[in-house]
């Protein structure tokens, strides 16, 4: 071999290591260094208290200053808003229940027909019979006030954002932040400014529920086809006419979907706001019975929430679907042209007369209330007693073999009682050997990137989220962000994590990270599997779809009831609640992605003689990856949203910190905790989005 040839050979072998991999090698050396040194330099794992910046105090100071000057204005606003709300509440609670039921049924009929009307009648009647009528009407009153407010905010912001580029530049990032800030965190500043009372819940839900309206309005207006707009322009529309006679009507369907989402968000927030108390609504009923461990009672009240959610969703979705529909022009006199108004008026008059004549129809007598809470309690305790061994086994196994290592690290968790061995030097050598074996397998299957993923997960599992040195964690996430999405994403991730570190939120953030990561992994694997199954099998899809729909419309609270019932409070219950809620997008997007792979590609594969299994693994799944990534992103967002609610069942972490700051009205702590959660969500979002986008580019699915 000549010298020149040897030189090119050397060059070739150098070139085979990509610069990206090289960076990871450097990272690996640093990580090992950190892990070796961590016993001597404690600050590597535990960020010292002295290094925490006084961000919390500064925020408190700012808020004090702000309230000192502006509180009277907000209190005034609060009073102004309280009157109409009291009015609606009064009307809803005092009008005879048959009237209310009839009116809701008429609206439901107009939205979707007889079946929905019957469903609404049955649901409302359930509330009457169980004796939750007044509480339900309080909740309804709050929603009735906050939804129009939300829609108004949404219309103004959406139109501004659509018309002016500068407004869009402000609104879009604001919406991003708003949709990632945990729900409880909304309540803190509003609570401080408006004072305790139902107005807080109303204002909070009006603000919380406006983003979908803004987004759908802007999206709908932008999506109106060019030639429709041009035809409007050529008809001689001025700007005003173009907007209100062409764009908005043409975008009506999307806008109505926004209204549907806004209603559901408002309801969710109203339920969550019950935590402040003082309004005797159904959310409070669930919460207080759950705290007292009155399982039967909370189930009965929880069912009311479920029913309200389903009614609101179906009715508003019915109208949204109808908005694009052809409306037949009615002819005839006034009564024939307005059947809805006429039948409502009839219902009011007839119902009022009935209520006046027969008192039962005015106020449902207490004696007739059927409240089977005790029976339910007996049933539940029978169930938990008889299946204790099974449920406890599931809980213990998941905790010891998966959750606790993720939380505190295998090195601290492995005990002879649980894992069957002590974490001796020999055992850890065996662990790393196994990991290297898996790593080399991964290298074969997926190249060096798979090895990096295996290594990172291995480190995490061994040292746990709370035992991993923070420089290692931050460096790993920043590196991933850089290689996936460029320096902007990397900088954002780095600064976000830096904020958590210096504000003192890091240990709690790591606890939240562990719970989120654990549930996301489970959701992704289980949900992905279900999604694939549903994509391949129409019957499975038909069964899963309504379940998914129902799970998605539920206010988050409701998930806690069955979980706590069986597994009591703790991390495992929180995990289950998160999974129930966050698995839905994993299923949906996987199914959607696979089902919408270009049929030509599948036909081509079939013609080449692929088996169904090969088509799935070699064609459908690779092409569906961008869509599945979007699903993963949603899973993360959903998991974080639920994480805060899960604080109610006794998890530790940022969620619990937000909740704590709410109950103690500590603004600074709330902002730091809520902000950290929002940052976590946004970092995850940016990285996954960038990843999905680059995958999409590689596959030629976008330009």
């Amino acid at each position, binding site marked *: 071999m000549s010298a020149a040839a040897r030189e090119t050979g050397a060059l070739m072998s150098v070139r085979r290591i990509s610069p990206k991999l090289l960076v990871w090698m450097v990272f690996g050396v640093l990580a090992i260094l950190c892990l070796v040194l961590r016993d001597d330099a404690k600050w590597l794992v535990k960020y010292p208290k002295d290094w925490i910046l006084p961000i919390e105090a500064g925020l408190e100071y700012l808020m004090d200053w702000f309230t000192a000057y502006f509180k009277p204005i907000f209190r005034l606003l609060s009073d102004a808003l309280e009157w109409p709300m009291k009015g609606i509440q009064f009307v809803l609670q005092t009008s005879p229940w048959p009237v209310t039921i009839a009116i809701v049924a008429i609206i439901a009929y107009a939205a979707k027909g007889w079946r929905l009307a019957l469903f609404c009648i049955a649901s409302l009647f359930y509330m009457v019979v169980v004796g939750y009528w007044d509480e339900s009407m309080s909740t309804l009153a709050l929603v009735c006030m906050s939804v129009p407010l939300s829609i108004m905010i949404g219309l103004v912001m959406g139109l501004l954002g659509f018309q002016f580029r500068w407004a869009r530049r402000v609104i879009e990032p604001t919406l991003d932040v708003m949709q990632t800030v945990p729900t409880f965190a909304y309540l803190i500043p509003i609570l401080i400014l408006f004072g305790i009372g139902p107005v807080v819940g109303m204002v909070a839900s009006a603000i919380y529920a406006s983003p979908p309206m803004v987004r759908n309005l802007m999206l709908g207006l932008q999506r109106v086809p060019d030639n429709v707009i041009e035809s409007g322009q050529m008809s001689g529309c001025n700007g005003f006419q173009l907007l209100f006679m*062409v764009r908005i009507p043409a975008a009506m369907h999307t806008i109505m979907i926004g209204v549907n989402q806004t209603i559901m968000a408002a309801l969710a927030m109203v339920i969550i706001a019950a935590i402040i108390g003082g309004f005797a609504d159904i959310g409070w009923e669930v919460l207080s019975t759950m705290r007292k461990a009155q399982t039967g009672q909370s189930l009965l009240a929880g069912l009311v929430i479920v029913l309200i959610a389903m009614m609101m969703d179906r009715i508003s979705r019915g109208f949204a679907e109808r908005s694009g529909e052809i409306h037949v022009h009615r002819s005839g006199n006034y009564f024939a042209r307005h059947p809805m108004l006429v039948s409502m008026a009839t219902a009011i008059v007839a119902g009022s007369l009935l209520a006046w004549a027969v008192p039962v129809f005015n106020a449902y007598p207490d004696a007739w209330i059927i409240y089977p809470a005790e029976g339910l309690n007996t049933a539940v305790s029978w169930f938990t007693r008889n299946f204790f061994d099974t449920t406890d086994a599931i809980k213990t196994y998941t905790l010891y073999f998966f959750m606790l290592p993720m939380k505190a690290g295998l090195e601290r968790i492995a005990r002879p009682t649980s894992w069957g061995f002590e974490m001796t030097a020999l055992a850890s050598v065996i662990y790393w050997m196994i990991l290297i074996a898996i790593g080399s397998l991964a290298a074969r299957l997926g190249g060096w990137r798979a090895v990096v993923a295996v290594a990172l997960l291995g480190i995490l599992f061994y040292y746990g989220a709370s035992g991993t040195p923070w420089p290692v964690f931050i460096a790993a996430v920043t590196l991933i962000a850089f290689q996936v999405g460029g320096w902007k994403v990397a900088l954002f991730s780095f600064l976000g994590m830096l904020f958590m570190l210096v504000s003192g939120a890091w240990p709690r953030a790591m606890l939240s990270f562990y719970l989120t990561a654990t549930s996301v992994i489970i959701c992704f694997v289980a949900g992905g599997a279900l999604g694939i199954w549903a994509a391949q099998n129409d019957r499975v899809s038909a069964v899963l779809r309504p379940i998914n729909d129902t799970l998605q419309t539920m206010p988050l609270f409701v998930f806690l009831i069955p979980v706590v019932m069986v597994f009591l409070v703790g991390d495992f219950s929180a995990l289950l609640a998160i999974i129930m809620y966050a698995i839905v997008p994993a299923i949906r997007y996987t199914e959607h992605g696979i089902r919408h792979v270009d049929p030509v590609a599948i036909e081509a594969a079939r013609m080449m003689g692929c088996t169904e299994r090969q088509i799935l693994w070699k064609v459908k799944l690779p092409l569906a990856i961008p869509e599945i990534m979007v699903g993963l992103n949603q899973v993360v967002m959903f998991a974080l949203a639920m994480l805060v609610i899960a604080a109610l069942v006794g998890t530790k972490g940022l969620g619990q910190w937000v909740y704590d700051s709410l109950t103690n009205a500590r603004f600074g702590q709330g902002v730091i905790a809520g902000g950290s959660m929002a940052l976590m969500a946004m970092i995850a979002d940016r990285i996954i989005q960038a990843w999905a986008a680059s995958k999409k580019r590689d596959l030629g699915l976008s330009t």
Partner: protein
Amino acid sequence: MTGTDDQEVKLTCRHVWKVYGPEADRFFTAGNGDVADTAGLVDTINQSGHIGAACDVSFDVHIGEIFVIMGLSGSGKSTIVRCLSRLVEPTAGEVILDGEDLLQVSRDKLIDIRRHKMGMVFQNFGLLPHLSVLENVAFPLQIQGISKEERRARAMEMIDLVGLSGRETSYPRQLSGGQQQRVGIARSLCVEPELWFLDEPFSALDPLIRRQMQDEFLRLQQLLHKTIVFITHDFLEALRLADRIAIMKDGRIVQIGTPAEVVMQPADDYVSEFTQDVPRVKVITAGDIATSDVPQTDDVVDEHATLEEIMPRFAGGADVIAVKSGEGAIVGSITAQKVLSALADSHATGDAA
């Protein structure tokens, strides 16, 4: 010659440019777009990361004429028709309608011009999905604030004109493509515009329906005598409908002429690519090849008659046939020899390409 040159000019497009890109304006110091070296400037524009969608486009449209702009996708034809109505704001140049530069008029004046003088038909119909057929057709009138009775009456008239009577209460999605485009046509005619823009109106339709709609369009034009700018990517459609054709490529006009001129004397290889497969006997008319001497014969054809229609007469033994103008006066003559050489000539041109 069909001879539209002597008729009054309705619309003039003079040195119009549309450049897309961050600093599109910097290429034009004077606003009128009249540059010394067009080709040089186009190169400069394209090399600087800008896109010249329409480059130095000039033409006149005469009153009552069907002026077809033909080009493949990306040739700039849709951009140009939008510049004429200012749906797209030209970067430079002048668009003169009835002696007034459209590019200088105020926003309000422009809206007024669109309301009363222009009508436009779109490729994908551009119907408002939430309005019925009647409401769609009446929409331009509603915009102007015309009373409900009057706009209903006028819209019904238009619906009748395009043959959609009985479908007034239907919604766009209930109609076939051809029917939807009839609604689009009725809507564009509802304000009785003088200028009628049609942007690939039949391209989204099936070939058979397209043919029907072309006939329908010619029937309407015989009735209405509008001044028309018609956009198409279909060369045969252009030949069928046009009084004059402008052929565009890469944002520039390659040739303007009557269908016969384009077929017999293609300006360059690009145009002759299109003309190669055109059945010339169906395009060349008696007027195109007639000599000006008045013959002694009773055999007379209209100057618009195609060679395909004339040839049987020669086959029947005629030596010379007189050609009469639209008004009926004898304006010249053709011989079998002439017909043969016209066909042979054009073939020679075609083969040379």
